[in-house]
């Protein structure tokens, strides 16, 4: 057995060192640089597909922000994204990994459709409140189940929330393909259109619905809750150092379940907004994976609720632009997903430069 050493690897070597503290300017420079790097890498990929990256990017930008319709479509996508991102942000703050926002969105949508079907009321505010309450409870309970399993038996919530997604998605398919299918839908898997009382009012004569206000309200509410309340402080301490939390007498079990419930409730209400504001009925595949994309949004926003609003608009624009890529450039949907993936990859990868720096130097011998 020999005791080896690493062979000297050329003239220039590098080491990774820990930073004592990240300079303030890097807080913005790192994500911005990561975004540019992602777009440049995406450009290489677009060029390989035989598309001019410049044309593709400018087409995407014009589609998302170029006119009133583009902006409204971007916002329409940003609404469920931001609400779901606020939901997962709350869990991530406590280091509980709820990746089941998608399932919770579906449960909220199912519950609100059930209310419309079985307890219709002609009064719009009452109808909408009932739908929101049902959606919140359904999404909340769905998530709290995983929270309870985590708190009581230490069941990994990543796995349980992920699995619950598939159950929720297929549960909805059961209803729209089966008992709730509209006989007049010509066989499409969808319920009958909701009555007007069950529709969220639209804004500015566009497809933007009242969910926009809900998203902004939730962002401000949770900013205040997390920063300025005792409960927010507890959640942060639990997330940063569970041992210190126990030392201060903070109850982990209760808070895991509570946080999961609230998180699921927000996602559920996002689902309700989507069917009530946008679709006007429950139908197969109504969510474009918002619950999953929300995880990206929450991370990119560094768990800041206000940043979530802006990042949601950015990702919403990417989705709208991606649709344009399909239509105008005839690229497959997956190309958009690849761009999204690149952005996440670079931005999360860039995080390392917040805590470490690379130092280059000449090798002496």
């Amino acid at each position, binding site marked *: 057995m020999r005791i080896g050493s690493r062979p000297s690897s050329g003239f220039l070597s590098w080491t990774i060192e820990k930073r*004592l503290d990240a300079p303030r300017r890097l807080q913005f420079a790192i994500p911005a640089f990561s975004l540019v790097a992602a777009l440049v890498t995406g450009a290489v990929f677009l060029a390989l597909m035989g598309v001019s990256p410049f044309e593709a990017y400018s087409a995407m930008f014009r589609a998302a922000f170029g006119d009133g319709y583009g902006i409204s479509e971007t916002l329409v996508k940003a609404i469920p994204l931001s609400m779901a991102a606020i939901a997962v942000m709350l869990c991530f703050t406590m280091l509980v990994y709820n990746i089941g926002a998608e399932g919770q969105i579906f449960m909220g949508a199912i519950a609100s459709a059930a209310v419309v079907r079985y307890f219709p009321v002609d009064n719009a505010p009452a109808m909408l409140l009932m739908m929101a309450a049902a959606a919140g409870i359904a999404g909340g309970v769905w998530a709290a189940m995983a929270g309870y399993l985590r708190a009581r038996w230490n069941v990994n919530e990543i796995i349980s929330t992920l699995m619950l997604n598939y159950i929720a998605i297929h549960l909805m398919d059961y209803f729209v393909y089966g008992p709730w299918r509209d006989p007049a839908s010509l066989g499409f898997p969808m319920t009958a259109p909701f009555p007007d009382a069950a529709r969220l009012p639209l804004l500015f004569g566009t497809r933007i619905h009242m969910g926009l206000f809900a998203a902004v309200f939730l962002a401000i509410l949770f900013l205040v809750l997390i920063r300025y309340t005792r409960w927010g402080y507890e959640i942060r301490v639990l997330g940063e150092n569970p*041992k210190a939390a126990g030392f*201060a007498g903070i109850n982990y079990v209760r808070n895991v379940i509570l946080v999961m419930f609230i998180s699921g409730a927000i996602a559920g209400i996002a689902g309700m907004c989507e069917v009530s504001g946008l679709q006007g009925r429950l139908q197969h595949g109504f969510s474009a994976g918002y619950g999953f994309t929300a995880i990206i949004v929450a991370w990119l926003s560094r768990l800041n609720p206000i940043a979530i609003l802006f990042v949601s608009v950015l990702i919403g624009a990417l989705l709208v632009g991606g649709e344009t890529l399909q239509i105008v450039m005839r690229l497959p949907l997956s190309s958009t997903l690849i761009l999204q993936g690149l952005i996440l990859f670079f931005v999360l990868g860039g995080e390392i430069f917040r805590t470490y720096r690379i130092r280059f130097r000449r090798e002496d011998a």
Partner: protein
Amino acid sequence: MTDDAENALLVAMKGVTKRFTGVVANEDVDFDVRPGEVHALLGENGAGKSTLMNILYGLYHPDEGTITIRGVAKNFSSPRDAIAAGIGMVHQHFMLIPSQKVWENMILGLDDIPAILPRNEIVRRITDLSEQYGLRVDPMANVWQLSIGEQQRVAILQMLFRKANILILDEPTAVLTPQEAERLFKTISQMTSEGHGVVFISHKLDEVMRITDRVTILRKGHVAGRVDTKSTSREQLAEMMMGERVPFSISKPAIEPGNRVLEAERITVLGDRGFPAVNRLTLDIREHEILGLAGVAGNGQQELCEALSGLRKLESGNVVLDGAAISGLAPRTFIDRGIRYIPADRKGTGLVPNMNVEENSILKKYWSHPVARGYLIDWKHVFEFARSLVSRYSVSTPSLYTPVRNLSGGNLQKLMLGRELSDSPRVVIAMHPTWGLDVSATRFVREQLLEERKNGAAVLLVSEDLDELLALSDRLAVICKGELMGIIGDPSAVTLETIGLMMAGTPVESIANPTGGLEQCG
């Protein structure tokens, strides 16, 4: 120095400078190690000892300066390079894998290990090295089952296994009993007799005086002095460390203890592995009293402290505060009734490293008025509170918004101490409160504990520093394997040998001539 003399040195560091953002950790530091010597590196926390040794061990790269090993200039880019050059470091927290066996830990981080591990060969080499250096350890034992002292031997063996002949020991005796420390010193002298060089980082001046050949003192990143141990004294070393004279003795006014405040009645507490860590233990602490608790690390002290502060469930027995049983109540009730706990693990338990000074200052009171107003936290009030805490307990921090992970050990401890002591606690349970602190921070912490004693608190002081225990305690309890070996009523009159015997498991009543007034217990 001539070239020959230079080549004869094991290590020569010259003009080493290392800056972190805004902070100079080392500036123009020269340091060398001769074959066969023990070279002590002395300095307060934050003086730059760890940075300097981490540079030598390849963890950091110096901004300026050179490192020469046996006359050859070196440029380490990682500990692997340093290890290949014969440098070994035993950290305060051993870099061992607890779930693996001793022999498996030996090959950790080595390159060129055959795919099929040559176990017999490794075990044989361990046995050889163990005998050669007096590092007795079972190669087939699981590391997690070993005592701290044994783990340290494994960590040293690990370095010798890699053929290190320059050994850096970072506060090696902090976790050892006096007897274990003696064995370590024998190992060190065996190593130096074979021409190895040892860098000995310590705060304990007695040890430095006893076993080292030269002492380099760092202060604020600079070399404050270098002396031959033979021609110096404890007082001179302390003076060089601090730059001013700080008297060693601490004045403890005589106060008559008052009523019993906190009592443990035959309590049994399970450790993390489900075995009893504290076994039918009974003790009490009175007003105006510091009860010292001595024992080798890992003999139930932590579990006892956690049980007394409400963080760990009792299997049986009772914890009584002011005559009323409180065991079984929520941890927060313990806090609200004035029981404060200063855990040994500051960053891991006592503080939230990523949160700032302000946020950490209210960990034990964020739910009560006036910090909390209804459901809201009054951050304006918190700011004022944190500011007064920082100034009253002289925490040196760039701002109240600095994450506490960036504070030095002494400042972390002052912050935590201030938080726990600031609202006149009824009971203070302090575990290793001066562990790893420099002389002036240590003194500060001790004075604060005496201040609490004066104010009427009942103080339980768990420490591995016997001098500290003897100087501060009104009574001294000794624990071994979760059982009380006895309580010494007059610590000033007891011999170290008696305490050593008790720490090793001899009940006080079985000791033939224990000097000093004794009070039996249990």
